[in-house]
């Protein structure tokens, strides 16, 4: 009380308040501040894979991808050449849906293009992701069925594929989803995703094994699908990252796995005796999403338009093993990679029921959270 009357104490308090205010100001200034509207440029009619030289001089774009060899390949095949041609500067970051939500909620969006799943863009369309202006992106060579919501341009095609050990089953390989669950005919451990990340195709695959169609699903099917895996008991082990799935296949920990096709290829390329089962597999598409509130949407659209060019997509496939979405892309691949390219097997692939999963995401997340935590 009376200590406040002491001038030196008051000075101390003022100093304290002052430094707090200063720190708050510093934090405030570091965020946002991008109030200037982006200039509108005349880019003409878009052609996939083309950009007018130097048209984006002085623009900085940030791509948030899923890391690893995939993002490195995208950088080399798509973003670096785009930067060189357009004059834009490209920076890289790692995608995380939670981080995106934080950016959008706080109005401080520092990403321009992200690589994410088609379910993410469908769920967050209009709230987390900008709707596409398809007049500014040339999707003429992208199969129509790959564009599954208004906030995405497909980025790559891959699959959730059964990969089996050829030493174990080389003479009599599994040929159906049902075989994956048949531990008598195909004994040994199987690995499936128990990652915190959710691929609804994992559940669809289990239902497929029961002869169900993914086109008409009910909420009860979610538990039914999970129960199929639980019924495998000790014969099912989980992978929590793509790298772990590949490691389990390479080490022979699992004789079979339901894994991302690129990881199966990774194991094969590292010399593991594994082969893909193409008789029944789940088609997956990654989205090019543009975060809601992006500072220069036109520039982001131009970059996406460039990234789906035939040449760019072919080079990306050669570098990453993931198939491009441009039907004109002609990647020069060796025999081993050709064996793993999903585009050769689209006739036997099953497309996911996106609408169902977007509508029933809460039920999916509750069931999945229980599965991923051993319940």
């Amino acid at each position: 009380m009376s200590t406040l009357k002491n001038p030196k104490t008051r000075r101390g308090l003022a100093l304290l308040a002052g430094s707090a205010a200063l720190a708050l100001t510093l934090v405030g200034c570091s965020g946002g501040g991008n109030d200037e509207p982006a200039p509108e440029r005349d880019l003409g009619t878009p052609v996939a894979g083309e950009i007018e030289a130097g048209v984006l001089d002085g623009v900085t774009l940030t791509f948030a991808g899923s890391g690893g060899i995939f993002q490195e390949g995208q950088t080399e095949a798509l973003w670096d050449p785009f930067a060189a041609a357009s004059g834009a500067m490209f920076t890289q970051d790692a995608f995380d849906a939670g981080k995106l939500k934080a950016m959008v909620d706080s109005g401080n969006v520092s990403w321009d293009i992200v690589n994410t799943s088609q379910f993410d863009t469908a769920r967050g369309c209009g709230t987390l992701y900008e709707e596409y202006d398809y007049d500014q992106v040339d999707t003429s060579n992208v199969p129509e069925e790959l564009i599954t919501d208004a906030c995405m341009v497909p980025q790559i095609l891959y699959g959730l594929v059964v990969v089996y050990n050829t030493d174990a089953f080389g003479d009599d390989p599994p040929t159906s989803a049902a075989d994956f669950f048949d531990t008598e005919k195909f004994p040994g451990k199987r690995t499936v995703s128990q990652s915190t990340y959710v691929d609804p195709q994992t559940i669809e695959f289990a239902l497929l094994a029961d002869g169900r169609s993914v086109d008409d699903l009910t909420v009860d099917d979610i538990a039914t699908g999970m129960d199929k895996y639980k019924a495998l008991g000790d014969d099912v082990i989980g992978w929590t990252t793509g790298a772990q799935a590949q490691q389990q296949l390479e080490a022979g920990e699992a004789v079979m796995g339901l894994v991302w096709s690129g990881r199966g290829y990774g194991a094969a390329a590292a010399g593991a005796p594994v082969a893909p089962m193409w008789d029944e597999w789940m088609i997956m598409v990654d989205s090019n999403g543009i975060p809601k509130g992006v500072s220069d949407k036109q520039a982001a659209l131009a970059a996406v338009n460039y990234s789906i060019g035939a040449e760019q997509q072919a080079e990306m496939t050669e570098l990453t093993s993931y198939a491009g979405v441009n039907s004109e892309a002609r990647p020069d691949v060796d025999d081993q990679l050709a064996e793993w390219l999903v585009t050769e097997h689209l006739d036997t692939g099953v497309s996911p029921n996106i609408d169902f999963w977007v509508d029933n995401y809460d039920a999916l997340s509750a069931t999945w959270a229980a599965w991923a935590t051993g319940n």
Partner: protein
Amino acid sequence: MTETTVTEAVAAQSGDVLGADPGMRKRRGPKNWRPLLLLIPAFVIVSLFFLAPLIDVFIRSVTDPQPGLQNYVWLFTTEANLTVVIRTFGTAILVTIVCLVLAYPYAYLMTIVSDRTRNMMQLFIMMPLWTSILVRTLAWMVLLQDTGPINGLLAAWFGIGPIPLIRTTFGVALGMCQVLLPFMVLPLYSSMAKIDKRLLPAASNLGANPVTAFFTVYLPLSKPGIFSGGVTVFILGLGFYIIPALLGSSKEIMISALIQQQISVFLMWGQGTALGIFLLVCTILILVLVSRFNKNGSLFPGVDR
């Protein structure tokens, strides 16, 4: 008012005791608060980067997606959550006990060996701390897997196996103990180093056998180290994420993975933050409980004052 009087009275008294001239009294007041200025940087940083986000997290947990306690209701009514919470605390307790059992003799040995050996022992403890936790966990993965070298040797020499080592509580506890062991050894050593070595011979001179001497003399004196190491290991253990994910199966997943999933995958921030607040409250409760057992009631036992 009263405060001033008391302060002045104390100042006057101490002045009298010191036999100082009255002019010294005036300088005493300011000197008392001036060191507090040193707290300003820490205070600013803590309020900005810890307190403010913490308040934000709490507010979110009761307002997202709408105001109410629905996130806490969800937390306590979802069976999967409760399993994970119990598992998290169980694992942390297990790891703390194992670390204590391993670290106690090691720390004791450090107090009786030569300086050179002690430096070596210290190096062995510190070296893992300087290696990436991810790299160490990957090494365990390779060693422990069914097709790994340990099971390979067991099969070749004894014809048994494969014994499940990875994807078990054992594997997770092993990986966590290896990371957390230094946090147990160092406080134990620092408290043991202060124990007078002559007390044990003195105890035997008075008729105690070595076991009695240890339990009645040495162990109580090393208690601050046990508390301090135990609390550190336990609290760090609660937050483990990578090791349970890589060395365990879904049956070893801990609460931090659940929080990550709610925040980053499902975008259910209300539920994720409720989990975080719950973990924080539990941790504080346990700290308070532990401090009751500590003689001087300190929340940070083992800290010299």
